[in-house]
């Protein structure tokens, strides 16, 4: 997932490090959001068991796959829509 290009000429050390750090931060935040959402979707909130049930495990796997799929398709749709609306996009 490379949202931040390093396309400009001769970035400084600090800039290069910040770019890599930023990219990892974006990935870490996506991971943390996935954990939150898939826990909500899949895990029984009564906590009668301390182990993941078979159903919960499978649900987590599928939720993760769907979360990535949604991420990609939304990202593509946004790019298309933003291009259609003429660059300015919906950020006003």
């Amino acid at each position, binding site marked *: 997932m490379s949202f931040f290009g390093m396309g400009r000429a001769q970035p400084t050390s600090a800039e290069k490090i910040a770019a890599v750090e930023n990219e990892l931060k974006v990935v870490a*935040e996506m991971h943390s*959001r996935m954990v939150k959402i898939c826990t909500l979707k899949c895990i029984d909130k009564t906590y009668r068991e301390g182990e993941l049930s078979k159903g919960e495990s499978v649900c987590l796997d599928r939720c993760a796959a*769907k*979360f990535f799929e*949604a991420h990609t398709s*939304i990202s593509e749709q*946004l790019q298309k829509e933003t291009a259609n609306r003429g660059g300015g996009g919906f950020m006003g």
Partner: protein
Amino acid sequence: MDTGLTQAENRQLEARLQKRQVKEFMNVFANLVDNCFTACVDDFTSKAMSSRENGCISRCVLKSMSTQTRLGERFGELNAAMAQDMQNRQN
């Protein structure tokens, strides 16, 4: 906005604001994904999105963009009115 900054300071500010805008766009994107995924995806009998889910997500993205645009306009107006109001009270 009269910021009382010199030109050089304004250029520095500009650079900071560009970074902030990227960050804000990422936040809007993340909230949109979370919101649309939570609202539209509820069937975990398969690991691929169903066409119903894909349709829901696509409509959710469109509606969220319109919401963002509309609230952005309202926010701008209300914020300007409030700033004006505060200035009037000070004079």
